[in-house]
């Protein structure tokens, strides 16, 4: 299996000058292509911070993060933006679609930033909308879509530039159970059929159940990892929606 993410000894402290909060504490993480991984843990355990560090949205205070062999902690701000554009897909908890653009335009935007050709954008976007089952909603603006539909569009947007992996921060938190299940079906299918790597931060037991690997964070440290120990960590030390 090909290594996608290799993080060594990464730490992140917020407000180091005033009231220091150690959000991620000497974490080592190794993820391979095609994994369907859930980062779980109680609120404040460092899930979102770890995702931000892996995604290059934030810089660690210590340690290295290698994505496909490239140490992103050494990249300049501009190089990091470019790296994210071509290698990392993001799905946010509150969808974050641009309200004035249609669903199709939201997905196209990322490929336009990559300077993809018009024809290939059209082809890719149509295929993605077919994949997420929203072909008939391509010209609809986000406000006219349900929460579940918006999150599916967000998944299509994350996948449009053919990233190395997709980071999803609490993707089902704002969805009803039917929409959440539908979204998980789509992501699981993409993972299995197209070998796309997904990493979620989540509280949602439904996501944890579907994950093939579950990493539990407590106080910024990896408390358990089913890649190393086959235990059901979903019920260990924190509550879920289950």
């Amino acid at each position, binding site marked *: 299996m090909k290594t996608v993410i290799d993080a060594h000894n990464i730490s992140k402290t917020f407000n180091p000058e005033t009231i220091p909060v150690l959000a991620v504490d000497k974490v080592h993480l190794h993820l391979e292509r095609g994994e369907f991984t859930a980062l779980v843990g109680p609120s404040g355990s460092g899930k979102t911070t770890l995702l*931000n560090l892996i*995604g290059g*949205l*934030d810089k660690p205070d210590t340690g290295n993060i290698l994505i496909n062999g490239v140490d992103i902690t050494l990249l300049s*701000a*501009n190089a990091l*933006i*470019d790296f*994210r*554009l*071509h290698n990392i897909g*993001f799905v*946010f908890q509150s969808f*974050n679609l*641009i309200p004035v653009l249609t669903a199709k335009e939201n997905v196209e935007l*990322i490929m336009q*930033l*990559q300077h993809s050709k018009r024809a290939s954008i059209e082809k890719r976007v149509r295929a993605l909308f077919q994949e997420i089952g929203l072909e008939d909603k391509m010209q609809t603006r986000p406000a006219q879509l349900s929460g579940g539909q918006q999150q599916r569009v967000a998944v299509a*947007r994350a996948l449009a*530039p053919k990233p190395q992996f997709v980071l999803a921060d609490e993707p089902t938190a704002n969805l009803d159970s039917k929409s959440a299940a539908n979204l998980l079906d789509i992501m699981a299918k993409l993972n299995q059929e197209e070998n796309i790597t997904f990493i979620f931060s989540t509280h949602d037991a439904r996501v944890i159940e579907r994950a093939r690997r579950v990493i539990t964070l407590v106080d910024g440290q990896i408390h358990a990892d089913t890649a190393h120990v086959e235990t059901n960590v979903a019920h260990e030390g924190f509550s879920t929606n289950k």
Partner: protein
Amino acid sequence: MFAGIFVLGLYEGMIRARVRTVIDTEVAHIQIHHPNFKDDYDPAFTIAGQAQVSGALRTVKDIKAVAYRSMTQGMLATATGSAGVQINGIIPDEENAVSSMKKKIIEGDELDLKKKNGILIGKKLADKMKLSIGNKLVLTFTDRENNITAGAFKVAGIYQTSNSPLDERNVFVNRATLNSYLLIGEACHEIAILLVNDTAVEGVKQSLQQRFPAYSIQTWRENSPETDLMVSTINQYSSIIIVIIMIALAFGIVNTMLMSVLERTREIGMLTALGMNRVKVFVLVLAETVILTLVGVPLGLLSAWITILYFSTAGIDISSFAGAAMSGFGFGSIIYPEFPIASLQTVMIIVVSTALISSLFPSMKAIKLQPADALRQ
């Protein structure tokens, strides 16, 4: 844009109205005097070759009307007080043609050639001296031989112009009457010439000066230097007005665009997270300002044009709160704004430049947003 154009239109309208008043009702286009007359208004300095000048003026096609005036400085006295005045001897028909005297009379009648001792006084002087139609007064002055002389006059009419200091200082009597007191016969001290159009002033002056080098021939710019100063500094005043408006505009744009950036912090953070580079974010905010400006400038221009078009005929009456102050400076209390075509290009360039410069700060703010922080908001 609207404010800039409208304020400039108001200013230009005021200046043009003042110039028109100066030419059409006060000093005419050109005046001819004895070269020493204006030093101390000595009645002895009459225009000697008046008939010769008069004949020559009839041959100039650019001349619309001519008035021959005699004048002196004197004291106006009533039973209750006195005031220093300039006494102007006029022929009513000539004065109506050159300075629209009849139109200025608000009470009583114009001078009657048959009533030798009629006098026209300004509204401000009438109020100050508590004079009304039919009241008697005495004018005291010196004749051409420096003897003090006096004459009794009866108020025939009260006039009012947009220049209250002028109204307070000038009284008008029949020229023949004044001349008889001054002992100057049929002579005059001033020839006021009104031209067909303003552009001919310098040409007519040059030609008259060549023919009558012994006389002092001055244009309205020389006879009303304060108005000339006002006209020649219109660009500087306009620049000051534009700078003040642009400062307000800059604050407005910075505020609007900063709010726009702050309201879309998450959106900008998301775009940066997904891979939109800083140059594109910068251009995004800048482009929004440009679009707002491109929409705003024509709209501002159009609304300013419509507003000015309306008020250029209807006028803006400020008499209720600033009439006296405006009159004190020689301005009318009704302003007729004029579309400032000459300043239009400059204003547009300055507005667009100010908009772009003002958007730099919000644009810089946008590119400094950290995606992780922005997404947390």
